[in-house]
């Protein structure tokens, strides 16, 4: 028989035992933690494989197309192959941040529009200058639409390469305007007039949404500020929320809300609710992403149409756009490998527009010229009329910067949008609260 039995153990004895065990457990744990900061991981994947992280940019068709596209990449002799990993939008900043900090992140990735600027500030980004100078030599650089590539440039160099532009576009439903006998607006005064006419028929002339996970409302607020010559930042990237143009723009939106031109329930509209109101012919006019007709399954150029950019009260015509881009990271198995893969990606990505699997608009003239792209009258109109007046969150700055990543999708901006669309505030109070909220999170 075994002599093993549970003895009477005093409290002190037990504490002593656990104390020793705790010490034993913590020491290697802390040591491992400390080591992880100094270890130089091979990064970007195992030797011979380059990790490419991509976001779900559109419906499932895009996911399948991008998997095939990456699988078709055949690297030159001695360069690593590429493997795709899909990263969901939910908490994507956390996903990237924690992976980069633990040196398990990608070598190349798509991601948030301002992500590259944020990570460049933290030293994780490999600049694309060498790649772009190669494109200058072979003439490919000329294929980029004006302003698209330049938007990626910082004092340290090009933090990323653009691959599509995500415009915020004025959309209108023709049948509702016809029914209300209203004219499609070209400026703010006409927007108010049209809104009042539409309201009489039970339609909303300001279709918006600011519920959980729906950033269109916040983008609309910034869009209107930019459209009035304002914006959230000074030219040198400092917060400047409470300027006169912003107050005027927000005051105009509050007037629309109080006049009943905006849907009172839009404060809580998720993306699905927002799309449903367009689909159910409740929204007659409003701002949404390019490709709204495609997202609703409606034929291009039929009833749901892109309007021309509106002119603000001071003659400004700017609109909001996000330059979606692909970035390279310093933690890569091979920098020439990263550049070769990125070059392959950009030069061959036209396949997405040929297959019709993306809603973003191209940054290359050669893609704009494709017959598949030219079929969509709305898309062509957006590239032609919106691209020349497109601005980012930076607006008055000539460069993008990390603070924009902290502002986009932030709680103060979401709360500000809801308070404006709720109509229970005035412009100055709402902007003052926004300024205070953003100043606590923007570390610039």
């Amino acid at each position, binding site marked *: 028989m075994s002599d093993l039995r549970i003895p009477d153990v005093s409290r002190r004895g037990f504490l002593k035992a656990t104390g020793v065990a705790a010490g034993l*457990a913590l020491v290697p744990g802390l040591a491992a933690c400390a080591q992880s900061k100094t270890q130089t991981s091979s990064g970007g994947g195992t030797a011979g494989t380059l990790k490419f992280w991509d976001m779900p940019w559109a419906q499932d068709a895009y996911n399948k197309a991008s998997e095939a596209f990456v699988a078709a990449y055949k690297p030159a002799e001695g360069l690593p192959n590429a493997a795709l990993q899909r990263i969901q939008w939910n908490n994507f900043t956390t996903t990237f941040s924690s992976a980069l900090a633990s040196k398990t992140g990608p070598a190349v990735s798509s991601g948030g529009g301002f992500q590259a600027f944020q990570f460049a500030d933290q030293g994780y980004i490999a600049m694309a200058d060498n790649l772009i100078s190669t494109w200058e030599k072979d003439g490919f650089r000329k294929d980029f639409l004006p302003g698209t590539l330049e938007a990626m440039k910082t004092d340290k160099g090009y933090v990323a390469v653009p691959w599509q532009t995500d415009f915020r576009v004025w959309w209108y439903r023709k049948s509702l305007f016809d029914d209300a006998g209203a004219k499609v607006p070209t400026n703010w005064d006409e927007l108010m007039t049209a809104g009042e006419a539409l309201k009489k028929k039970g339609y909303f002339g300001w279709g918006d949404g600011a519920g959980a996970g729906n950033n269109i409302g916040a983008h609309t607020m910034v869009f209107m500020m930019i459209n009035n010559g304002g914006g959230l930042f000074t030219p040198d990237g400092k917060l400047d929320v409470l300027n006169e143009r912003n107050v005027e723009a927000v005051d105009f939106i509050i007037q629309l809300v109080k006049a009943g031109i905006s849907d009172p329930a839009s404060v809580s509209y998720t993306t699905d609710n927002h799309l449903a109101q367009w689909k159910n012919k409740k929204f007659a006019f409003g701002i949404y992403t390019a490709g709204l007709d495609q997202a609703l399954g409606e034929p291009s150029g039929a009833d749901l149409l892109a309007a021309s950019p509106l002119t603000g009260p001071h003659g400004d015509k700017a609109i909001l756009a996000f330059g979606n881009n692909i970035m390279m990271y310093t933690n890569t198995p091979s920098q020439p490998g990263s550049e070769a893969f990125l070059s392959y990606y950009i030069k061959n990505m036209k396949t997405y527009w040929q297959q019709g699997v993306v809603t973003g608009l191209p940054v290359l003239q050669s893609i704009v010229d494709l017959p598949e792209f030219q079929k969509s009258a709305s898309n062509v109109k957006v590239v032609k009329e919106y691209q020349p007046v497109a601005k980012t969150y930076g607006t008055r700055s000539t460069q993008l910067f990390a603070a924009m990543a902290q502002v986009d999708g932030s709680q103060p901006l979401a709360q500000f949008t809801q308070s404006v669309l709720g109509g229970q505030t005035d412009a100055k109070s709402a902007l003052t609260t926004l300024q205070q909220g953003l100043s606590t999170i923007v570390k610039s």
Partner: protein
Amino acid sequence: MTTTTAPSTRGKPAVAGQRRRRFKSGTSTLFFLVLPSIVLLLLIHGFPLIQAFIQSLHNGTLVDPGPFVGLQNYIDNLTSATFWKAAGFTVVFTLVGVFGSWAVGLALALLLRTRIPAGGIFKVLLLLPWVVPIVVSSTAINWLVATSSSPIPMLFANLGLAPPLFLADPTWAKILVCVFKVWISFPFMMMMSSAALASVDETVYEAARMDGATSQQQLRWITLPMIARSTYISWILMTIFCVNDFPTIFLVTGGGPIDATNTLVVLAYRTVFQNQQVGPGVSIAFMMTVVLVFISTLLYRQIRKAAI
């Protein structure tokens, strides 16, 4: 005699020494037996907890730990109107969630105790709100009330009434979220109450009836005291569920409109992941933990005081 007494007098220290040796070898055996568990516990729970506490004392981002700020994050939160607004709604949400679901659950458990036709089927059907994934039920509630084309606003409109802005109006949104919480939680309370009621001896009620006790008196003086221990346990559990309930709020309102339905757990999430302020967000979570431990301890003391 000497030979018999000598061993007996010497025997005591010999046995004691044996015990001490056995104790020592037993202690070390115990130590090595529990060591893997303790190591695992410390690695899984202790290390992240310590790491998180350290984060709460820094003002960093998800990548950079940032400078040490001491208790400043805690002070900032405790002096922030947003924090107290979220704390206030957390209290309301928890009180309604715990006592609302308990009242409904107990009422249904008492009802199902009586002989009603197809009682088993009712029991299964009543469990559905608890069983259905929260993503599905929150989508359903959104579909029911969100837009002017949704069924309930349409019903109001057809009746000639102005449809309430269930999700867009701060007061309505609070009511909706609390009612939704009661709806998804009452089956749990019903199960707990049913189990407790099953253990109450029927003869006690017979005796009470013979003494002329009314139904209300039986409920007040027999049923509730006899299921008190189970009730306190269910209150503790539901309090923890409500305070830590992230998906209900986040999926239905996202904490809006204008932070009206923001609870502390949603505020912590939004601070860390939307504002990228790790220190302040983690400090909110720590303060929540302290309050939860305090409440649980209070309720646990009530369990010990309970009659049965």
